[in-house]
């Protein structure tokens, strides 16, 4: 069992906000088969997923140990129980599971749609999912790990409570998952990015990893992200920031240059590039030019020009 703390913050009418979940339920209820792509096989099973049968109410630690083991972290599920299991609640919090995985220097990436779930399985990654086994008004939270599917998607395979590779009807599974707001995560080994990772979600996940485990824990993932998205503005911009924070100025400059090529109209990349070039004693003319064109007359541009002018000239560039 697990408790959920991720309550949505409703700024507006609660009736309107309440409409967000029902649509998920309605859509979920229509699916008797998992939405397989036409090129996906009729059955798939992620190999070598470790199995930790849960004790008492400890499905959270067991599910977490499963995905961590699969991501190459040697774990002792009893140690995880001490870390993420709350005796008073007889359960774990989803956010604590995620934080515990990040604390072990692993990237945790959200998996929030049936399509994304299948994509992870196809890429050989088990998916930790949160389920509500009872009703939305009387929830019974549970964590399990999806390790595969069968019968053209009519059945999913779960490591759940004390059962390993337990087949479950897709329709029933997707309803319990929808009642937990489609919360799910994949945990990947260092330097391996999740299948179908999107720039925005990936950068957010990487920032969260850096925040929890320190920038160096994220470096292998960042380098992989830079290679997978060489022409993405956000990824290259954020990669530059990561490398700069690590003191790798020449590499940061490369990434920011890539960001300015991807989207010359964005001020932020020109700004950081110009500051970095100035600090290295390099020519800043073209970077300042880009900054001027992307944010003409702005206060930030003035501050940038001032900061670059104030930087003492270096002896040689890089």
């Amino acid at each position, binding site marked *: 069992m697990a408790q959920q703390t991720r309550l949505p*913050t409703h700024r507006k009418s609660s*009736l309107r906000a309440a409409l967000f979940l029902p649509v*998920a339920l309605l859509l979920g209820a229509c699916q008797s088969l998992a939405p397989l792509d036409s090129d996906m096989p009729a059955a798939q099973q992620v190999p070598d997923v470790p199995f930790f049968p849960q004790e008492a109410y400890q499905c959270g630690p067991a599910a977490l140990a499963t995905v961590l083991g699969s991501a190459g972290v040697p774990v002792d599920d009893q140690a995880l129980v001490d870390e993420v299991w709350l005796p008073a609640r007889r359960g774990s919090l989803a956010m604590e599971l995620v934080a515990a995985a990040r604390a072990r220097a692993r990237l945790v990436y959200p998996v929030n749609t049936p399509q994304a779930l299948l994509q992870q399985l196809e890429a050989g990654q088990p998916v930790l999912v949160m389920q509500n086994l009872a009703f939305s008004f009387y929830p019974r939270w549970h964590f399990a790990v999806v390790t595969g599917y069968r019968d053209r998607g009519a059945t999913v395979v779960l490591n759940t409570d004390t059962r390993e590779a337990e087949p479950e009807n897709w329709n029933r599974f997707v309803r319990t998952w929808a009642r937990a707001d489609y919360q799910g995560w994949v945990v990947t080994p260092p330097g391996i990015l999740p299948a179908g990772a999107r720039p*925005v979600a990936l950068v957010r996940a990487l920032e969260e990893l850096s925040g929890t485990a320190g*920038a160096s824990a994220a470096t292998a993932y960042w380098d992989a992200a830079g290679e997978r998205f060489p022409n993405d503005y*956000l990824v290259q911009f954020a990669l530059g920031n*990561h490398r700069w924070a690590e003191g790798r100025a020449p590499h940061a400059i490369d990434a920011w240059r890539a960001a300015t090529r991807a989207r010359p109209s964005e001020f932020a990349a020109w700004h950081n590039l110009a*500051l970095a070039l100035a600090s290295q004693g390099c020519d800043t003319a073209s970077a300042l030019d880009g900054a001027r064109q992307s944010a003409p007359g702005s206060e930030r541009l003035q501050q940038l020009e001032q900061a670059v002018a104030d930087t003492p000239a270096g002896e040689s560039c890089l």
Partner: protein
Amino acid sequence: MTTSFRSHSRTRSVFVRLLAVLFVSMQTLLVPAAHAAVTGAGQGMIGTAEVLQQESRAENEARIHAALARDDASSALERFGVAPEQVDERLDRLSDSELASLADQAEDLPAGEGALGVLVFILVLLIILDLLGVTNVFPAI
């Protein structure tokens, strides 16, 4: 005996509470500073968080647009008498998390013409955005 024990435990609980307050306030002061250093905002650089937030909204709006551009979705919108520009305008009012939730659902729509899911999605979208116009049955939303 009992009273002295009680007052002792009370002193201890006050002490524990003080420690907790101190710890929490230290955390709130220290954690943002550590995070700012991580994202490179410390040295006058524009941090990742700022750009991430604006990119995140743009991506979610693009995902919703992609769903609304489907033939079955745009004809449903037309049937309700709503122009795509009106939808855009209202999307700006949603919070980041509401927008993300809608975008996830938009992406999850089943493929194929005339699917029920598309109609349900459009209807809910219009209710959320208060765009049902003359047929507005929830004026309070």
